[in-house]
């Protein structure tokens, strides 16, 4: 396997290079980044990561995560960090997908990881889903002082919904028939067969019901308004003194 390592000259870079050399890989470290390597291991961000369309690109951040290096995470196939704190930092602060961040402690584990990834056999990193963070909504009381009660708002919303349904008449209904040619005749017969019930009995009864519904809604709305006024009214500072 041809391996290219890129990053500032350091003991970490040399140790990683030795790791691959020891198992017989062909390792290069110098710039420019060659285009024929099988594995690219970057210990810091590099412009070449944006051009590599073959091989496996690994961002190795085991030796520290800084802003400049972390922003290259989207361009790598996977990221390697030293501990779970590093993973959390990379995922939360830099938006890298947690599935692609692997916690690796030893050299052997790194070799195993890249071999599996190169063969596309690597399962995604196991990530525990965190608990829902405590927010102001969770921690604060549901209703702040002075705010209308939830029950009141619910009642007001129900009242408005009831108002939309108060008119129970089917005013747009028209007797129709889809029969070709004879349709209008069928509709005319049906209309006339039912009109003696609809006009003197059903329509007036339902109209009275609609009027009653509207009246009730108006009364309830007025009552709510009075109630709201009482809720909003501040407590009088001049309390009545008890009689001695």
């Amino acid at each position: 396997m041809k391996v290219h390592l890129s990053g500032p000259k350091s003991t970490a870079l040399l140790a990683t290079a030795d790791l691959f050399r020891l198992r017989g890989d062909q390792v290069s470290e110098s710039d420019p980044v060659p285009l024929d390597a099988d594995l690219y291991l970057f210990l810091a961000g590099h412009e070449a990561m944006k051009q590599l369309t073959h091989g496996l690109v690994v961002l190795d951040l085991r030796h520290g995560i800084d802003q400049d290096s972390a922003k290259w995470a989207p361009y790598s196939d996977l990221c390697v960090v030293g501990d779970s704190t590093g993973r959390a930092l990379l995922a939360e602060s830099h938006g890298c997908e947690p599935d692609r961040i692997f916690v690796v402690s030893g050299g052997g584990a790194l070799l195993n990881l890249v071999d599996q990834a190169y063969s596309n056999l690597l399962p995604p990193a196991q990530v525990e889903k965190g608990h829902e963070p405590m927010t102001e909504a969770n921690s604060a009381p549901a209703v702040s002082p002075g705010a209308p009660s939830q029950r009141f708002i619910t009642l007001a919303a129900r009242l408005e919904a009831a108002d939309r349904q108060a008119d129970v008449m089917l005013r747009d209904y028209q007797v129709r028939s889809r029969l070709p040619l004879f349709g209008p005749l069928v509709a005319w017969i049906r209309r006339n067969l039912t009109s003696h019930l609809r006009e003197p009995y059903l329509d007036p009864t339902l109209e009275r019901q609609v009027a009653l519904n509207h009246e009730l809604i108006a009364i309830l709305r007025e009552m709510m308004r009075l109630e709201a006024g009482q809720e909003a009214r501040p407590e009088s500072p001049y309390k009545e003194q008890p009689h001695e």
Partner: protein
Amino acid sequence: MRLLHVTPRYPPAIGGAERYIADLSEELVSRGHQVDVFTTRALDFHSWKTELPSFEQRSGVDVHRFRSMRRRKWVWAVLHFGLRHYWRTRSPYYEPLVLFGGGPISPALFYALLTRARNYDLVHLNCLVYSHVTYGYWVGKHLGVPTVITPLAHAEQEVTYNLRYQRRAMAGSDHVIAMTEGERDLLLNLGLDPWRVTVAGTGLRPEQYENGLELDKSRARRRLGLPAGGFVVLFLGRKSDYKGLDLALDAHAALQTLHPDMRLLAVGPETEYSQALWSRYQDLDGIHVLDAVSHEMKLAALQACDCLVLPSVGESFGIVFLEAWIMSKPVIGARTLSVASLIQDGYDGLLAKPGDAADLAACIARLAGDPELAHRMGARGREKVLKRYTVPHIAERVEGICLRVLRRRSREETNSQ
């Protein structure tokens, strides 16, 4: 990289999906990639009517547009018949009807893909609910060109992701881009490989909102004919049935007793549904309605409001939340899978129970009663957008996904040798 985006519509057509693909294309071009777009000549997905020119260059992006079949009344009938029977039986016999009825049916687009897709390193198919993704995927597979799908799946609308041919396209493509964590979870539940599903999201260009921030709130209100005082709730979006405008109106009506000076500003293109709605709510006070507006007017509306409300149950992302946040305004959305992934309830916005006007009214009342909390939420939202949801951030992610797809392909080829 040479990238081909295949999308049902492209600006000047209006919509979240259109804006996403245009922003992405322009940003990738500015990063030195060659980006072409294949799309239809339609402005409107209701009819797929041919209205736009066949070729246009927009900000360095070559946009090739193809004629598609008009979606007339009978085509809609075919779609509804197919869907009704598909959900009842789950039989593949009804799939061609859905595929045909959904559109866009464009033989010219299909032929162009067949003859020209090989010229690109990767084909990106946008918006799974439409048929072009299915035939685009088929062409990619046939020619061996890597394909990436952005499904824009709405968890509450199965038709956007859960037909058999849609699942097949996603499973067979090289990568799937989800808009939110919630959408990713939804797609993984369909059995997709976690390595092949990544969250990218969508973003804004903050500089386009600077003018709005410079505008004084009272001036913005004057410009829109709103009173200087009082709490203003903004509904921003196409006034379609699933967007929840009726809930916003019900919530506003419920709060009229407590906050008589509260105003609801409804901004966005009118639809037949909204026209019917206005006649139902004509007696309601404090409603200000605007049709589709210019960017400047939208900024004025965002600056004039005290909070944004979008209780929609059909969002794959909800870019208007980002727009409100960038203007430091708190937001209220419905607790759906995607929106709940975007809004952190109680931290940068509030989530109301879907379809519950009373809960929505309670959320509005909470913000109206606690301006400090509203201010804090808006500030946190702005911080979130700048940190995570800008166009360069999103392009970076998509660029990374494309590179990973190409590298994975190359490794597969090497391993199979």
